[in-house]
């Protein structure tokens, strides 16, 4: 690792999706990640509190914006099309209703490289280069690259492989559908290749398009932990592993050993003048049970299935179903789930398998269905109280640790798009929105699921040495990165730069700190696509927004097939069982 300069002149953000010290500390101690161990020892570390929900899209958006979901408008992989509607669509960059570190750095004349971050399609017109990640299909990756021509430059690289770089359901499904033992090794190998491909693109751009703010996200950490938690967590590893289990454990360690080398490579390429920040969007931990939330809502009388939905539960359209003894968790069922409700008799439902959110059906203007304004709060309070009382049938322990109202969890101009209630499960897991035979079902195997506490590590130029800070918030990362760049932190940013900078860097920052950016309401500010103008805060002008026509916002509601594809992907990523 290079000897860092006294003051940073640029910043590098290395995102490790879902990384947790619960795993990394063990890997560092066992010399699987020696570079990271040394980097941490010479820098700053702290637990990093995620947002609610601790989920990739809202959490990374919070890191990028320094704001919480109610303030930036991204709550899930999906977005409600209208606050009172039932329909969902894919979340995109156009749902990010706040300035980002990319746009703020660009506006200050800084150059940016942003690779593999979610919510970056359509790509924002930054002063630099963007290759989006998240739900970007490989066939469309050309459309996601910015500036125009970047994709062709990357395509000319010897190792470029769009199919492996972006997500390809053919790969994801092959490795995950059925979770056959012989597919694990290929799955892990794919993610090792994918991380290396991102690293190669990063290296190319760092050389050819050197930036002030360079950022890359490695998302294989999250994927491996979802599927291979029992091989990674020292507390879960089989005491007497079979040869196959030993092989998979070795492969998991090989992934992290390579990741360690990639991190070291990035730090080396960044040079001594760079401040380096490593962060995860959330942490991870084990989960052992499935909580069928919609089944519970049905049993409590809040939800009713349409007749068609009941029929569809018998088989998933792929030959799987109760009749042949296969699990009744077919993907087709998930895909049709939201559309299988009897809306005349449903007042509360969980719409997505990733947000732990419950939506209440409020009365339409014609009074045809849903809760009246007077009933809304009563029903919500009843629901919250009842959910707090759900117990595990064997242990008797509470299943739901916390029930948060929309106001408590998502205050901000976009709160109307958020679920009415959000659950925090006792084991940190995610609910199922499927129709289960019972409310609580043990999983066949321990799997990994999200936890609120991720990681923050910083080092390099301007950073303190050998310091462990108390818990920081993910919204603190944006102001820290802007501080490293000398870019003014907007006054409306929620996060505060943590005490990671050393005395010299802090003094330079204080001496040269310009007035915080206070932007006037813009005349052509982009409204959030799903919010009526009256519900939005004063718009904030973003020079990085390509779309200036307020009508040019997508409202693509996904059909059953598209939703099925999305949910296959969610399952492949481990968000649904």
């Amino acid at each position, binding site marked *: 690792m290079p000897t860092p300069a006294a003051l940073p002149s640029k910043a590098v953000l290395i995102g490790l999706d879902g990384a947790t010290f619960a795993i990394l500390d063990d890997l560092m101690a066992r010399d699987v990640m020696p570079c990271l161990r040394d980097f941490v020892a010479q820098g700053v570390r702290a637990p990093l509190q995620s947002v609610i929900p601790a989920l990739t899209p809202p959490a990374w958006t919070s890191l990028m914006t320094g704001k919480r979901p109610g303030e930036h408008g991204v709550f899930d992989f999906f977005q409600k*099309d209208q606050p009172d509607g039932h329909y969902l669509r894919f979340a995109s960059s156009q749902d990010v209703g706040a300035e980002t570190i990319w746009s703020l750095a660009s506006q200050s004349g800084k150059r940016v490289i942003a690779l593999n971050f979610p919510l970056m399609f359509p790509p924002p017109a930054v002063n630099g280069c963007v290759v989006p990640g998240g739900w970007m299909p490989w066939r469309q990756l050309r*459309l996601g690259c910015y500036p125009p021509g970047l994709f062709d430059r990357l395509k000319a690289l010897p190792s470029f492989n769009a199919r492996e770089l972006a997500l390809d359901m053919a790969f994801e499904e092959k490795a995950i559908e059925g979770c056959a033992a012989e597919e694990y090794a290929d799955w892990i190998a794919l993610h090792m290749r994918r991380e290396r491909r991102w690293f190669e693109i990063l290296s190319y751009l760092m050389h050819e398009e050197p930036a002030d703010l360079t950022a890359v996200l490695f998302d294989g950490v999250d994927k491996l932990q979802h599927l291979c938690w029992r091989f990674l967590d020292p507390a879960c590893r089989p005491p007497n592993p079979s040869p196959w289990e030993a092989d998979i454990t070795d492969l998991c360690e090989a992934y992290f050993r390579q990741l360690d080398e990639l991190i070291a490579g990035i730090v080396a390429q960044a040079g001594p003048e760079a401040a380096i920040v490593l962060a995860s969007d959330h942490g991870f931990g084990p989960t052992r049970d499935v909580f069928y939330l919609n089944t519970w809502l049905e049993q409590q009388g809040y939800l009713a299935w349409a007749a068609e939905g009941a029929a569809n539960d018998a088989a998933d359209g792929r030959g799987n179903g109760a009749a042949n003894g296969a699990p009744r968790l077919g993907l087709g069922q998930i895909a049709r789930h939201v559309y299988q409700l009897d809306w005349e008799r449903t007042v509360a439902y969980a719409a997505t398998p990733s947000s732990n959110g419950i939506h209440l059906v409020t009365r339409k203007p014609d009074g045809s269905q849903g809760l009246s304004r007077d009933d809304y709060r009563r029903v919500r309070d009843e629901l919250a109280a009842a959910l707090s009382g759900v117990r595990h049938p064997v242990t008797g322990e509470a299943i739901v640790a916390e029930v948060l109202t929309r106001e408590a969890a998502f205050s901000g101009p976009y709160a109307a798009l958020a679920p009415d209630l959000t659950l925090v499960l006792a084991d940190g897991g995610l609910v199922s929105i499927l129709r289960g035979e019972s409310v609580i079902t043990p999983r066949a195997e321990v799997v990994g699921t999200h936890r609120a506490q991720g990681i923050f590590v910083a080092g390099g130029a301007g950073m303190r040495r050998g310091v462990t800070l108390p818990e920081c918030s993910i919204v603190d990362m944006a102001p820290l990165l802007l501080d490293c760049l000398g870019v003014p932190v907007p006054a409306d940013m929620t996060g505060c730069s943590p005490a990671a900078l050393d005395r010299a860097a802090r003094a330079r920052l204080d001496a040269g700190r310009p007035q915080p950016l206070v932007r006037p309401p813009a005349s052509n500010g982009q409204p959030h696509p799903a919010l009526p103008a009256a519900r939005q805060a004063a718009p904030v002008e973003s020079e990085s927004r390509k779309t200036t026509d307020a009508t040019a916002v*997508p409202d693509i509601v996904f059909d059953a097939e*598209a939703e099925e*594809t999305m949910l296959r992907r969610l399952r492949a990523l481990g968000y649904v069982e």
Partner: protein
Amino acid sequence: MATLSTQLRAEIVEMMTELAGDWEYDGEITPDTYLFGDLGMESLDLVVLCTAIQERHGRMPFAEFFAELGQRAPKDLSVGEFVAFIDQHQQLAVSNGAR
């Protein structure tokens, strides 16, 4: 002088041809090419493609279009149909002065 429709068709075909080249599809993209059957696209590809088109041409009722597509058999879409839909709604937007 090329009509709006002709320009749009050329633009969409050019975009599809460029994308298909990345997939190593070596056939010619014509109005009769099917997005799923011929090009091997998935639903998510179409959703992302529509998002990109809306970036260029403004908001269009793709939700209704997808719903209609999902109810018919076969559930596939030709480039010609796709262009016609975009053209129809772009023309409407122009005539309404919305663009």
